[in-house]
C-alpha cells in the first residue's frame, strides 16, 4: 500500500456555481490554480497523471467523497464527479470545484488535485460524455469509476466508456449477479476493465493457487462472503481449470471463509484494505487483465 505524503491538504480553494456552462468551469479552474500558486509560491510546474471520472448517483455520493479523500495525494489528477439528477425538475448544470494541495516534505512545492463535482440536472444527464470531454486533461489516461451497477444498455454509460481508457467497477455493488457479468463482457473490447471485487479477492486467490497441484481435482468451492467475491473466485477456478466447479455460497459482508471440498483454505495474511487503497491500486493499472476477463466470461 502506498503511504500518503501528508495527513491533510494545506491549501484548499473552492468555488460553487449554479446553472453554469463548461467554459465558466474551465475559467474558474484556471483562477483557482492561480490563486493556489499565489498562496504557495508555487507550483509553477504542475504534475498530473490522469483524469479520474466517477459516475456517482446521489445515493453513492458520500461513499465516493470519502474514497476520494484518501486518494488525492497519491494520484495528482483531475477528478470529475458526475452526479446524475435526471428528475431534478429543471435542466441545468451545477458545479462545485475544489483544489486541494499537499506540501511535499522538505520542498517548496505542492502536489495539487482538482475535484470537479457536477450535478447533471434534468436533461443535462442525457449526454454526460459531451460535458466531460472538454474537461479532460489532454493526453493523459482517463479512468471511469462507475458506482453501482451500470445500466449497460443506456447511452450515458456507453458515452462515458467511450471517453475512458479504463473502467473501474465494484461488482460487489451490483444486484443482478451473475447476469450482469454477461453484459460486462460485451465491453471488454471497448475498454480495459477493473473490478474492485476482483482485487479484494487477490489474497484468497493466492491461497488457492498455493494448493496446486491438489486443487486440480476440486469439485466444490464453499465461500462465505459477498456474492460477487464468491462468484469471481469460483469463476476464476473454472476458467483456469477449464471445467465446471460447484459453488456453495453463504452470504456475509466480507470474505471470511473459502473451503475446497470442505477443507478450509489458508486465510490470507493481510490487512483488509480501505476503499481508497483498492481504487488507488486500480488507477495504477492500464492494460487489460486477461485472467479477470476469462473469469467473468464463464460467469454467465
Amino acid at each position, binding site marked *: 500500500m502506498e503511504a500518503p505524503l501528508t495527513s491533510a491538504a494545506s491549501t484548499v480553494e473552492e468555488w460553487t456555481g449554479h446553472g453554469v456552462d463548461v467554459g465558466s468551469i474551465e475559467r474558474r479552474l484556471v483562477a483557482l490554480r492561480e490563486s493556489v500558486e499565489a498562496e504557495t509560491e508555487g507550483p509553477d*510546474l504542475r504534475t498530473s497523471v490522469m483524469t479520474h471520472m466517477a459516475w456517482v448517483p446521489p445515493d453513492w455520493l458520500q461513499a465516493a467523497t470519502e474514497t476520494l479523500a484518501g486518494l488525492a495525494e497519491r494520484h495528482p489528477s483531475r477528478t470529475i464527479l458526475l452526479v446524475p439528477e435526471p428528475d431534478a425538475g429543471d435542466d441545468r448544470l451545477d458545479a462545485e470545484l475544489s483544489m486541494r494541495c499537499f506540501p511535499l516534505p522538505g520542498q517548496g512545492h505542492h502536489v495539487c488535485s482538482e475535484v470537479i463535482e457536477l450535478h*447533471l440536472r434534468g436533461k443535462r444527464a442525457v*449526454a*454526460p460524455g*459531451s460535458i466531460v*470531454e*472538454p474537461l479532460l486533461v*489532454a493526453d493523459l489516461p482517463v479512468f471511469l469509476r462507475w458506482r453501482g451497477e451500470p445500466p449497460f444498455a443506456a447511452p450515458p454509460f456507453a458515452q462515458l466508456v467511450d471517453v475512458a481508457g479504463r473502467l473501474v467497477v465494484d461488482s460487489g455493488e451490483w444486484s443482478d449477479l451473475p447476469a450482469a457479468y454477461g453484459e460486462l463482457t460485451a465491453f471488454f473490447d471497448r475498454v480495459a476493465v477493473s473490478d474492485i471485487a476482483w482485487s479484494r479477492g487477490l489474497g484468497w486467490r493466492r491461497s488457492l493457487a498455493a494448493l496446486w497441484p491438489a486443487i486440480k481435482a476440486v469439485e466444490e468451492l464453499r465461500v462465505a462472503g459477498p456474492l460477487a467475491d464468491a462468484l469471481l473466485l469460483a469463476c476464476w477456478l473454472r476458467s483456469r481449470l477449464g471445467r465446471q466447479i460447484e459453488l456453495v455460497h453463504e452470504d456475509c459482508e466480507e470474505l471470511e471463509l473459502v473451503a475446497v471440498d470442505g477443507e478450509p483454505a489458508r486465510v490470507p495474511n493481510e490487512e483488509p484494505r480501505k476503499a481508497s487503497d483498492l481504487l488507488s491500486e486500480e488507477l495504477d493499472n492500464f492494460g487489460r487483465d486477461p485472467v479477470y476477463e476469462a473469469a467473468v466470461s464463464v460467469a454467465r
Partner: protein
Amino acid sequence: MVIFGASGDLTQRKLMPALYSLALRRLLPEEFGLVGVARTEETDDGFRARMEAAVREHARDEFRQETWEGLAEGMSYIAADFSDEEGQNALAERLTKLDEERGTAGNRVYYLAVPPSAMSTIIRELGERRQAQGWTRLIIEKPFGHDLASARALNTQLAQHFGEPEIFRIDHYLGKETVQNMLALRFANGIFEPIWNRQFIDHVEITVAESIGVGARAGFYEQAGAVRDIFQNHLLQLVALTAMEPPIDFTADSVRNEKVKVLRSLHTPGPKSVVRGQYGHGWIEGEEVPGYRDEPDVSPDSTTDTYLAAKLYVDNWRWADTPFYVRTGKRLPRRDTTISIQFQRAPHPPFEEMSSDGLRPNVLNVHIQPDEGVSLAIGAKVPGQGMSIRSVNMDFLYGGAFRTGLPEAYERLILDCLLGDATLFTRADEVDEQWQLVDAIVAAWQRDRPSFPNYAAGTWGPSSADELIERDTREWRHH
C-alpha cells in the same frame, strides 16, 4: 485609426477591448484618435456608448473611467457607404480635423474589418486619396481572397497604391503568446532544436478544434468552409512556425522568408490524404444542437465543409517523410488548439511489457488555447515496489509562471502595426503559397459530391479522419 466595419462583431468583441487595454497600459500615443466607419446610422455619442459597453463586457482589464474618457475623447463615427463620394469626403474631413485637433500629423492606420466584396473599393479610394504627409498602414482582416486568383488580384490592387511594408494582413493566431512562444521554445533553448527533425520526431499533429457551430456567420461560412476559414490561414501558419528553419534575426523579412520556404515545400496532398466533413445533429456540453444544414441561413443541401483533416509533408532536408497531420472542425467536443510534437519511441525499453502498459511516446504539446502553455509527456516510475512505468505530464502554464495577464492577440498586433513591425503579419507571397495549396485541395473536391453530414456534433469528426491516420499505424492524440 479608422475602422471600416465599425458596427461589426469584431470591433466590439476584439478591436475596441484591445485598444482600451493598450490605452490602460499607456501604449497608445497621446494623440491617438479613432474613427469608426460603417453603413449603420449612429451618432458619435451612440458609437461611444456602444463601444463603452463593449469594453465593459469584453475587455480583459477592469474598467477605469479615466482611461475610457481619455480614449473616448478622440473617438467619432461616420455613418457612410464608402463606395459613395460623400462618405469618402466625410472621412477625409474628419481625419483632417483630427490632425488639427489632436496632432495626428497625417499618420493613418486603416483597419479593414469588412467583407471581401467591400475591400476593393476601400483600397482604391484610400490609395487615390492618400496624402503626402505622415505614414499610412492598412490592416486587412481575413479572408484575404477566396482563392488564388482573387488573392492575387487583391495583392495586385494593394501594390498599386501601397508598399508591402504598409500592408498588414492579419492572422490573429500569430498574435497569440503561445504561438510566438513556439519561436522562443525552439530558438531560445539549446535542447529542442537538435532533435527538431525527422530523425527524432515521429510525426506532428496540429489541431484547431472549435465546439461552437456556425452561429451568425452562415453567410460567410457557406462560401468559405473550414478549408478557407481555418486551414488556409491559421493552420498553415502553425505548420510554418513549427517547421521553419531558424531565422537569422527576428525582423519581419527574416521570419517571413523562413515561413514562405516551408509553405513552398508543402507537398500537395492527394485526395486520399484529405478528409472533409460536415456536422450533423448531436450534443455539445450536455445540450442538443442542430446539424449544420439545419442552422439558420444554411442551405438544406449544403456541401460546405465544417471539418477538414489532412496529412501534409514538408519536402525538405529536415522533414522529409515526417507527416504533419492537421485537422480543424466545428462542433467538435472541445475548444482546443494544440501543436503536438510526437517523438520516436525509446528504441529498446528494458522493461517487462506489462510494466510499461501506461507508457506513451514522449509528446511535446504547445497549447495555444484555451489554456496557453506547454506540456511534456514523459515516462516515470510509479513509486513503490517493482518497476511500473507510466506517462506523466509536466505542465507549464503561462498564467502560473509569469503571474501576469496575457495580452489579447489583437492588442499585440495593433500595437505592432502602430510601431510599423510586420513580423507577425502575413506577407503577399505567404498568402500566395497558402492559396495554391487550398486551390489544389478544393479542385479535387469538385469531382465528387460528398455524403454529408458525416459526423455528429460533439464527436471528433468523421471516421474517415481516423482512418487517415490509422493507415499509418498512428492515432490522433487523446483529449
